[in-house]
């Protein structure tokens, strides 16, 4: 495989990976704080794209305000999701919670399909479409935005968790919910914040990727799944691990296309991601069960 092809697959992989990472971060935050895997995470990504389209094209706002409003609205929807479903379902099992979030995802998809139709939409690129070249590879400016915003989000999150009161409270919850309750942190409030935060991050991802890949009412499923894999690869633990997981996933997929041989065919991209997921889980299974035993 030629160098520029390799570089191209790396850059494309990095771009895709950053999106996966952003979505994965959302999964991680909710999972750590509440122990729930929120299968509606992908829908927030979709909402981010759709809303930013709505506010730029229909409401005619400039990019940045549109972005902020979209993210804010998504956060509110995230909070509403928690209050209306998770919070209402008292003493529900893991399975019930999973199905509830899946139901929520389908519900949101339906609303979006009604509001924006089934044809994909494309919000304007942040800073034009004039591509940049290096080493024979091409990057669109929007891709740089994606990478930049992902890193920014990671930094902000890190700051939030390490050096703000809320962040510390959230971390306390993720370490030990009941103990956190004992020291006067309200786990429900923390869960609410976690859902809002996750929704916001997801929407951010959707808003930055939409100009590049466009967005349609049913895009949440696929994107959510990738983010989910990224989060699992990162072990649902630290932000850095998740971002690394996302980028690895993105690059592997693209390199697989570049190799395009045997099992590494572009048809099997989704499968490749999930096989990775399975391998990682199984390798880590021993450790996981040990942890559970000791605790």
């Amino acid at each position, binding site marked *: 495989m030629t160098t520029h092809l390799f570089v191209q697959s790396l850059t494309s992989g990095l771009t895709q990976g950053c999106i996966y990472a952003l979505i994965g971060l959302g999964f991680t935050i909710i*999972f750590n704080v509440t122990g729930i895997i929120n299968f509606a995470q992908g829908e927030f990504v979709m909402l981010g794209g759709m809303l930013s389209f709505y506010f730029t094209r229909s409401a005619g706002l400039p990019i940045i305000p549109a972005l902020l409003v979209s993210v804010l609205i998504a956060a509110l929807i995230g909070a509403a999701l928690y209050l209306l479903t998770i919070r209402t379902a008292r003493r*529900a099992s893991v399975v019930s919670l999973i*199905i509830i979030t899946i139901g*929520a995802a389908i519900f949101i998809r*339906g609303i979006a399909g009604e509001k924006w139709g089934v044809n994909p939409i494309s919000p304007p690129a942040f800073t034009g479409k004039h591509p940049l070249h290096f080493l024979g590879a091409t990057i669109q400016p929007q891709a740089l935005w994606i990478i930049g915003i992902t890193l920014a989000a990671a930094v902000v999150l890190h700051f939030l968790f390490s050096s703000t009161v809320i962040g510390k409270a959230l971390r306390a919850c993720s370490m030990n919910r009941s103990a956190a309750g004992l020291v006067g942190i309200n786990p429900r409030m923390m869960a609410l914040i976690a859902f809002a935060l996750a929704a916001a991050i997801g929407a951010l991802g959707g808003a930055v990727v939409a100009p590049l890949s466009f967005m349609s009412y049913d895009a949440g499923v696929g994107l959510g799944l990738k983010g989910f894999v990224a989060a699992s690869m990162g072990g649902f633990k630290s932000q850095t691990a998740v971002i690394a997981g996302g980028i690895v996933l993105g690059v592997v997929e693209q390199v697989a296309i570049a190799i395009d041989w045997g099992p590494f065919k572009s*048809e099997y991209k*989704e499968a490749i991601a999930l096989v990775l*997921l399975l391998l990682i889980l199984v390798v880590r299974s*021993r450790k996981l069960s040990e942890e559970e035993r000791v605790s």
Partner: protein
Amino acid sequence: MLAALKKHKWSYVGMAACLLLLVLLPTEYLLAEKISLLTAVGVYSIVAVGLCLLMGYTGQVALGQAAFFGLGAYISAVLSTTHNVNPWLAMLIAAVATGAFAYVVGFPILRLRGNYLAMATLGLGIIMWVLFRNLSQYTGGPDGITGVPDLSIGGFVFDTDLRKYSLIWAFCIVILLISQNVMRSRAGRALRAIHGSEGAAESVGVNVTQFKVKIFVLSAVYASVAGSLYAHQTNAIGPGSFDFLASVLILTMAVVGGLASVWGAVFGAAAILILKIEWIPEMSKMSFFRPLFMSGAAYLISYGLLLMVVMIFLPNGLFVSLRDAFDSWRRRRTQRGVAG
């Protein structure tokens, strides 16, 4: 024996009633024109029961059951169409192959617990779906496989709706009875023990990993058999029928049935299928809802709403809730009897 009869009196009465209903339902007097719905209930009950054994009794989350359902359907379809294998033999091969596959993946995967197990099974399910869709040379790709022959015994072909219905429900009943026997046995106690506490189960000599894998395999085989029956019933299959949402559908049936109940699975399958292929389509006919259904929104909204509402208000299922109510009523009655 008499004692047993007394002990399970009500469940025998229930069974008799169910059987009678099964015979009467497809007749002109009741629901002749809904026979395909009734047949579908039979097929999905088989899958749902498997899931009940795995999740309700043993407490192992599984989000990829459609993979085994599809595996059975595809192996049966491919063998009986392109390779002209006898359908019954094909069904057997499918069941064995699916079981073997479940056994191989089961050992590593079932070491995981809770959410991690959910992820793994979810991943497995989608991988299989991608393979169904993309291994075009064997599976017909996205267009699926057509011309799957009807099952037949000697000259007797299961070609009419009524015959298919009877065949599938015969299978379903046998599987239900088998499942019930297993759950009331030593193995069943071991499995429930695993659900209760793996540590305690080990301490009384239960080989936890082995039993988990065994029940995983059993549920996979059930799904496979259901898949084969489905393929021969509808004579055609496509990858879209075995995707993630299909797994969710099966999962919901099992949960609505109240997981820890073999007969609940049938109830759950019936409840969900009536909503999905009877009520929601009927709604779409009404001029008031039509515009919403044209844009597809109503289908998604009502389905999503259904999942949420059921899980929030009936976390341990419709069937179990009803059964518990019935039991408490019986207890009160007997107590009054003692008093009087």
